[in-house]
């Protein structure tokens, strides 16, 4: 009996601790379930672009320049004077989460909840980024 009371006491203690930890964690909207989001249509379109979160910039429009360096890519609309920059610390080898992903409009950080690469190779990068509101932003660069 004493042993049962001791177990019950330990369980209640651990439960309480976990509740306290949750209260101290930074608040964040629940991330959408990745399994519900179908990225495959995006993979079929090789047009370099950043679309989502009120951003809509597509390569091929005259005056839109794309630049890729080791840890960032930039879309620059020379006509509108806008620059969208996607930076990272580390890309996965072929697909998976991107470490240190950052999306900037001009100098403003859009604050991403996550960024997942669906395809990475020497010239192509297909990314599904998600902002803090859970909105998807498609980032594609090809041939660079």
């Amino acid at each position, binding site marked *: 009996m004493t042993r049962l009371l001791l177990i019950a006491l330990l369980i209640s203690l651990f439960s309480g601790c976990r509740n306290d930890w949750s209260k101290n964690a930074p608040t964040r909207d629940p991330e959408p379930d990745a399994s519900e989001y179908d990225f495959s249509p995006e993979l079929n379109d090789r047009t370099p672009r950043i679309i989502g979160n009120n951003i809509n910039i597509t390569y091929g429009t*005259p005056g*839109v*320049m794309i*630049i*890729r360096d*080791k840890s960032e890519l930039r879309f620059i609309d*020379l006509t509108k004077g806008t620059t969208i920059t996607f930076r990272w610390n580390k890309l996965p080898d072929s697909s998976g989460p991107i470490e240190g992903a950052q999306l900037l409009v001009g100098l403003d950080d859009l604050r991403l909840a996550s960024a997942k690469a669906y395809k990475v190779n020497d010239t192509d990068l297909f990314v599904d980024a998600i902002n803090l509101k859970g909105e998807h932003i498609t980032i594609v660069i090809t041939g660079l």
Partner: protein
Amino acid sequence: MTRWRRNLTCIVLLSSAALIAADFNGLSGLKLKRAIAETCRPTSYTTDIISNLTAIDSVPTDNAVIGHWAAASWWTDSNRIKVQTDLHNLFITSPDIVAAMSDFAPGNIETITFSNDFIYCGYTGDGTNAIGAYQPRPDKRGDVARTIFYLSTVYHCSWWNGSAINILTDSEFPGLNASAREVLIKWHREDKISDEEKKRNNAISRLQGTTNPFIDNPELAEFLWGNKTGQVFISTEIHNRQPLRAIYSQTDDEYIDLYSPYIPTDASWLIDGNPSTNNSVKTQSLAIGRHELHFSSGSIRGRITIEIR
């Protein structure tokens, strides 16, 4: 200079290509010639010569024969194919003119063996000093002079063989012998560049990737062979460099400057897949429509679409 030493010089020149400024301002003498050679040699050669030339010159293809201002036999076998197919050197003509011109050099004819309203062929001087030559009608002489200037600068002297000795020298610079310089500079000065010649130059550059710089910058010849020989070249056609933008117009004085504050200044460029060695490209040398420019510098790679209207 022995053949092997000249070939070695060629290798050294080619390997230093990346160090040469893409435009000619501030250069003189041998450096100026090297810069022209490295930046103005065609980036591609067309295989369909007849149809391209007849389209450029607006002449019918029926019975069309290709003439060479610099005879194909002037060039060594291994390099002949390039000079033979360089459209700047070619014109559409008739078989009798091709036969009369033989492998002659341009010059002032004293003994005429063939003539029509387009060209005289025959010999300069008489006796043992006479050489076979052709002399086009006055409004074509400048065109010919600028073509020979171009060929003697773009194609290195080690490519020439004995047949060219009447006009080209065996040294790397300046490439033209004294009598050829005298005749051709005079023709160049007397027959100014026409709108037709400019249009032809731009049309050829759309196919080959490069223009004849002696048509773009007529004063260039004076700095190599004329009254400014040895002086530092400063183009009178300098324009204010403008960063890349979306839309251009195809007017006479409009350039696409391969420059942007977002792109390293040492970037190398491709225009529609063809390497560009010039910092500025005339919009007239590209077709109306959209064009893709690729650039790279170290780890940086990029591209932009522009439109010419």
